[in-house]
């Protein structure tokens, strides 16, 4: 298994993407979570540029550029425009699960991802796919977990966006020839998620007066009502 330098650097960013996923779980400050998300998006773009270079793929160059524009520039901008600075200075004290346990669970999810992807990865000899597929799935699962464990609106939103990052990290390896229009549409969709959820968060804050999603529990199943 000989590895070219861009592919080797791609595996490096795979490791860092996993780290940033852990960091998003471990960070208390809303601001910090957002920063790690941006860092993760930069790594994702770097990864797709590297693979674009090594595979001479126009699609991946485009995808990297789209990622930079949508996730590194547009989403933080949109979120800052929509929500007052007070949101980002917030510290999240009341989490559903404390941070060491969260990290342990994130670890378990990584193991699950490796297990699930193990048989599939075994069918291919492409080193990039072998690295990206499990770590992409781990990114998705950890993002989903932080969505469940977080209590603040913005970290929950960033959990969703981190899941997208995970899916794309797997995508750059296995589906590099996706139609450009689809890539564009997906990127637009990601920004739209930020806009819609941001708007919703603003409305919730104006009406309910808190952005702790835990406060939203009036509607229940009939059994417990």
């Amino acid at each position, binding site marked *: 298994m000989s590895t070219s330098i861009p592919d080797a650097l791609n595996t490096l960013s795979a490791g860092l993407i996993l780290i940033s996923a852990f960091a998003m779980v471990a960070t208390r400050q809303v601001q910090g979570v957002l920063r790690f998300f941006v860092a993760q998006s930069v790594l994702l773009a770097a990864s797709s540029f590297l693979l674009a270079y090594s595979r001479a793929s126009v699609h991946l160059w485009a995808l990297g550029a789209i990622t930079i524009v949508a996730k590194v520039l547009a989403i933080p901008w949109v979120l800052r425009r929509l929500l007052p600075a007070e949101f980002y200075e917030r510290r999240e004290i009341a989490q559903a699960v404390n941070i060491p346990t969260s990290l342990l669970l994130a670890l378990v999810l990584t193991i699950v991802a490796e297990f699930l992807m193990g048989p599939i990865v075994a069918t291919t000899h492409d080193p990039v796919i072998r690295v990206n597929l499990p770590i992409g799935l781990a990114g998705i699962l950890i993002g989903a977990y932080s969505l469940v464990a977080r209590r603040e609106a913005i970290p929950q939103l960033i959990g*969703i966006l981190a899941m997208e990052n995970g899916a794309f990290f797997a995508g750059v390896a296995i589906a590099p020839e996706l139609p450009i229009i689809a890539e564009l549409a997906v990127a637009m969709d990601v920004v739209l998620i930020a806009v819609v959820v941001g708007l*919703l968060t603003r409305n919730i804050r104006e009406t309910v007066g808190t952005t702790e999603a835990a406060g939203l529990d009036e*509607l229940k199943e009939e059994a417990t009502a």
Partner: protein
Amino acid sequence: MTLIAILALPLLAALLSSIRPLRLYASAITIVSTSACLALAVYVSAQVIEHSRVVALPGWFEADGLSALMLVLVSFVLALASVFAHGYMQHGHEAGRLWWFYGNYNLLAFALLAVPSLAEPNLVWVAVELITLFSVLLVGFDNTSNALEAAWKFAVLTIMGAPIALLGFFLLFWTYRSTTGGAWETWEGLRMAAASMDPSLLKLSFLLVFVGFGAKSGLAPMHTWLPDAHSQAPTPVCAVLSGVKTTVPLYVVLRFLSVVLASPAARVGNWMIVLGLVSVGIAAFLLIQVRDYKRMFAFSTVEHMGIILTAAGMATQAADFGAVSQILNHAITKSLCFYVAGAMLLILSTREIASVRGLFRVSPFSGGALLLSSLAIAGAPPFPIFLSELSILSAGVQAGHKVVVAVLGVLIVIAFVAILSHVNRMVMGKPAAHVSTGVLPASCRFTVWAAAVPVVLLGVYVPAPIHNLLQLAAQQLGGR
């Protein structure tokens, strides 16, 4: 070209209804555009019945029997709901904000219509995602704390499914590309190539898409957003959400299922049956203890999604026919139910089942409509849902799934009893002494009448074109 026109119309309407001088006429614009979509969709289905396939732009916009059926259903519900909204939204909403509602509504219409007319699966994913995003803001439109809570749960649970499904689509794309050597990916092409694709990869990608989109179509155990969203959203939106917003992601799951079924090594049918039964079971028991009549109809949606999934899991031609008829009947009946619920809400201004009594005496019109629609949605003869559920059960017996049929039958009966006992309490008896009755706008009254016509008719007589369309649609599900 018609297909592209169907997609262009709602976009145009969304644009027009947000231009400042035209904002006042937003509801008229929406009614016109959705009715035009309905006409075009009927035209497309006529074409499909004739040629079995309409191609607007090869590889991008194509329609077969299943897509045509979905197009007709979606545009039918959208058109009637926009008529209903015309009267409904004038009550209790600032006139200045209505254009925002209609703009969103038209964008939602665009996304809903795009899903069945697109042939490229990855774009279908985008369209499904857009559906969710545009409906989130509609659910929270009332801006009360309950509505926003519902919108938040709805957003988080359903958007969370999207990246999971996206990975599924990427995996599908990967295996398709490596099997066919780089061919353009379409639903049709996928079915052709399915037999030679790697079955474990196919199964995994189906699993991911099922998890992701199952949440969007309200299948248990990812259904928890559904009753909240459906009880809190403005009623015309509920009709769209419950009638077609749930079946459109399910349509994608069924398409994908037909691809997986075309691969002999990947057996998932039995799993679909089990998961479908779980949804039906959970919904049936929650129906017993429901306290809000809009939530009651919402749980019945979960039940119907489960029935459709179970039928599709049986994977025989007869069961597939039952499944597509159930999609059709669910859409027309459930939207009627929500129009009725909206009318009741306007008249009684309460959503609680316990505080509604003697509706017949308060308002004979809505009382009668509630009785009719509930009988229809619960599956009493001679309504169409009875017919499609019966055909699913008999198809199950033919396919040898005796236990499944027995369980499904029992659960349907439980749901039936639960719904009708609630409705019975609301419709019959003496009303409380001091009931403040609101006025029902003419457009709402009209919608209830118009929506009731197909519900009554299709139970007695299915016209030949609709029958043909259903058969064409059932073929696409790939049952043997």
